[in-house]
């Protein structure tokens, strides 16, 4: 969920430039890679927690059936599904049966699994667990009718109906495959993890650090390169920067643009990865309250916000976002179209307000929580000021996180709010969960029967191009006729790493799945 995914926390990055030379030299083996983040998870159980930290740590240890491609030639936001534990898969003609063929892979050599081979039983048990446990992950498999182990290495998924996002969902970070022993309770999944991944969890000190060692039996020949991986918790930004300066950390996350600037100025050697954040700030209004049920008011709000200046000055760069987050690549509307449909036009906003019967604006309250970190609160302050400039006097109310997330937002107890959405990796999630009148996260009282219909339709379209068209159409419809939640912006996450770190080509999905490729160019 978005709950723990504070903006500061993303250590993902994308190779922007100069990655050619990195690949020219032979990878070197060995070394310790220290990753410093502001926080770590409460539990390692990947099916019970949606926190980014849980999944980052899961990614070192576990694999999915399928995953996304990473590498120097792959964009941060390319969602190319590639084999992981499944060597290969088949989709039936009608799109309702998916058959996955497992590769020869071995669990980590730890009690009680002791390095045995992965089999279909493990996959079935994992999937059943995902469905049984309450939580967001169950929704990903909601269209699945049955899962069966055809033989030791073949798993068959039967869907209720054709379902376009299915394969994408199978690559979702909730789909980490666990050994059956763990599901039967022989491993304490909250504190331990036994997987098939490139790294073996050696020790986890909650809130201090997790230490991983190289998995010698990893199924990708020769990988990983690192001997040791350390995931360290340093809540204070200053300390993180200091750690980076003193080379106690190879990569750090959650650095404000200004401090990063200062850091780069004093250490010109370092490489900064700039990638699109896989979620966005949104302004949302309670459609059941006056005057927000009026489309003109919602448009006025949207037009009042100076998105580009905001994202530039608060996050040091980014772009105007849309109903589907731009990090989903082509699924999102093209940037020009987003900018055109979400213009900054305070004068126009005032006119619209006047039309709607508020020539002098109105007073309202805007909620925001500090649970995601300070940046969002700053965004809220920026937006408050923008709104004030068009006559909407929004008093900002900072709501305590638990209250925000259990009483205010889901229960639609607010006038206006500013918040992040979770990191969705499927356009269906962005659109349907939020804007369908039955959507699990429709916490805005948005209701539009036409939209509902369109949303239901697009998930059945198996042809990718056709679906893409439909998704774009829906987005245009939303921006013109619904506009709640109002997309604001997506910023560039800037992650510095040491110049001797090679092949650091992260991907927008959770789990640091690129770490198996990383090596250190130092003695």
């Amino acid at each position, binding site marked *: *969920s*978005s*709950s723990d995914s504070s903006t500061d926390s993303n250590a993902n990055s994308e190779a922007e430039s100069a990655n050619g030379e990195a690949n020219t030299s032979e990878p070197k083996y060995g070394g310790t890679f*220290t990753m*410093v983040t502001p926080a770590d998870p*409460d*539990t390692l159980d990947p099916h019970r*927690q*949606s926190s980014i930290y849980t999944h980052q740590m899961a990614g070192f240890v576990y694999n999915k059936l399928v995953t996304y491609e990473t590498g120097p030639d792959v964009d941060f936001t390319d969602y190319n599904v590639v084999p992981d534990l499944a060597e290969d898969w088949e989709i039936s003609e009608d799109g309702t049966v998916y058959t996955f063929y497992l590769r020869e892979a071995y669990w980590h050599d730890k009690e009680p699994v002791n390095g045995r081979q992965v089999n279909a039983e493990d996959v079935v048990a994992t999937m059943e667990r995902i469905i049984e446990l*309450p*939580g*967001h*992950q*169950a*929704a990903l498999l909601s269209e699945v009718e049955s899962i069966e182990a055809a033989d030791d290495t073949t798993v068959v998924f039967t869907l209720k109906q054709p379902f376009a996002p299915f394969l994408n969902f199978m690559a979702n970070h909730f789909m980490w495959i666990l050994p059956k022993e763990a599901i039967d309770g022989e491993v304490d999944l*909250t*504190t331990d993890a036994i997987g098939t991944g490139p790294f073996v969890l050696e020790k986890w*000190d*909650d*809130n*201090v*650090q997790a230490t991983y060692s190289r998995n010698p039996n990893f199924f990708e020949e020769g990988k990983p390169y690192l001997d040791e991986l*350390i995931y*360290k*918790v*340093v*809540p*204070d930004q*200053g*300390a993180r*920067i*200091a*750690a980076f*300066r*003193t080379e*106690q*950390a190879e990569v750090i996350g959650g650095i404000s643009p200004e401090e990063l600037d200062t850091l780069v100025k004093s250490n010109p050697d370092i490489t900064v990865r700039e990638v699109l954040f896989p979620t966005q700030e949104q302004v949302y209004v309670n459609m059941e309250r006056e005057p927000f049920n009026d489309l003109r008011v919602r448009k006025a709000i949207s037009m009042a916000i100076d998105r580009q200046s905001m994202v530039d000055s608060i996050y040091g760069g980014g772009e105007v976002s849309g109903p589907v987050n731009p990090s989903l690549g082509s699924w999102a509307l093209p940037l020009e179209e987003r900018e055109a449909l979400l213009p900054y036009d305070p004068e126009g906003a005032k006119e619209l307000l006047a039309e709607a019967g508020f020539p002098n604006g109105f007073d309202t309250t805007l909620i925001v929580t500090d*649970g995601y970190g300070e940046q969002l609160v700053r965004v809220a302050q920026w937006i408050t000021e923008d709104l004030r400039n068009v006559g909407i006097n929004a008093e900002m109310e900072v709501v*305590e*996180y*638990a*209250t*925000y*997330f*259990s*009483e205010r*937002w*889901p229960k639609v107890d607010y006038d206006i709010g500013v918040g992040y959405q*979770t990191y969705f990796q499927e356009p269906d999630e962005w659109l349907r*969960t939020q804007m369908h009148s039955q*959507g*699990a*996260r429709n916490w805005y009282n948005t209701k539009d029967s036409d939209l509902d219909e369109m949303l239901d339709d697009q998930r059945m379209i198996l042809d990718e191009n056709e679906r893409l068209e439909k998704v774009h159409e829906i987005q245009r419809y939303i921006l013109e006729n619904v506009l709640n939640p109002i997309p604001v912006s997506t910023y560039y996450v800037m992650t510095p790493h040491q110049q001797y770190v090679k092949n650091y080509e992260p991907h927008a999905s959770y789990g640091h799945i690129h770490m198996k490729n990383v090596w250190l160019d130092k003695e």
Partner: protein
Amino acid sequence: MGEYIVRRLIYGVLVLFIMVTFVFVVMRAVPGDVVTLQLADSGATEEQIQALETELGLDKSMIAQLGDWLTGAFQGDLGNSLWSGLPVTEIIGDRLPVTLQLSLMSIVLAILIGIPVGVISAVKHNTFIDHLLRITSVGGLSIPNFWLGLILLTGFALVFNWIPPLGYQSFIENPVVNVQQMILPAICLAITLSASIVRMTRSAVLEVLHSDFIRTIRSKGAKERVVIYKHALRNSLVSVITLIGLQVGYLLGGTVVLESIFSLPGLGSLIFETVSARDYPVVQASVLIFGAMFLLVNLFVDVMYGWVDPRIRNS
């Protein structure tokens, strides 16, 4: 004395009981509940929510829950975290040593600085040195320790290119690293505490120096050094110890901020994290532990009184 300690312990348990009940009720009375928090974004059904409530034992009446928890607590079982499911005792067991060590180091540092300076200030009563020390100590009380922490951390990083080694290591694991990690936050905390110790020592020593028995001791021909260190200081210790007992509260509070600045996984930051997650058992237990620590320190202080002052020992 033995009976006295037992009495104080019973008394402490009573106080802890009131405290825990207070925390228990308040936590559940305020908006925000842990089940919604965990399931809000998953579109979970009513049944799933209820199932989770039952699983976490939150469907029972508040009194029943309190009863259960207290029964457990008396048997040393503080429940499990509602988020990670880990036993609270284990979670706290990991965090407590950090806070304890930090507090202990600060107290020791503060005493090492505070008492000698206080004595000097008292002996040099009304001289320039005294004024200087007094003003400095008030200054020490006026600087928020988080500010000091920020400045020290950045200052060391910029000037010496040094920061405390990352990744907390316990003293047993690696004493050198551990002390390097702890020293700066301990100094920040010690500064405030030592400032109050200076003030208390100064006034206590001054007061004792004016008392009749000091005149007796001087009339015996004792050296001034003996008068001050053997008699005046020893007699002042009761008030200094009392002060330390009371200030331990501030100190423990201060650990929260410094733990967060210096990335130490202590009990203070645990409360901070778990309150907003509404992880009731962890918060209850952490508050309980803090309370117990405070009470134990004060009990220890009372026992120390007896050691310092025989009048108290025998009564």
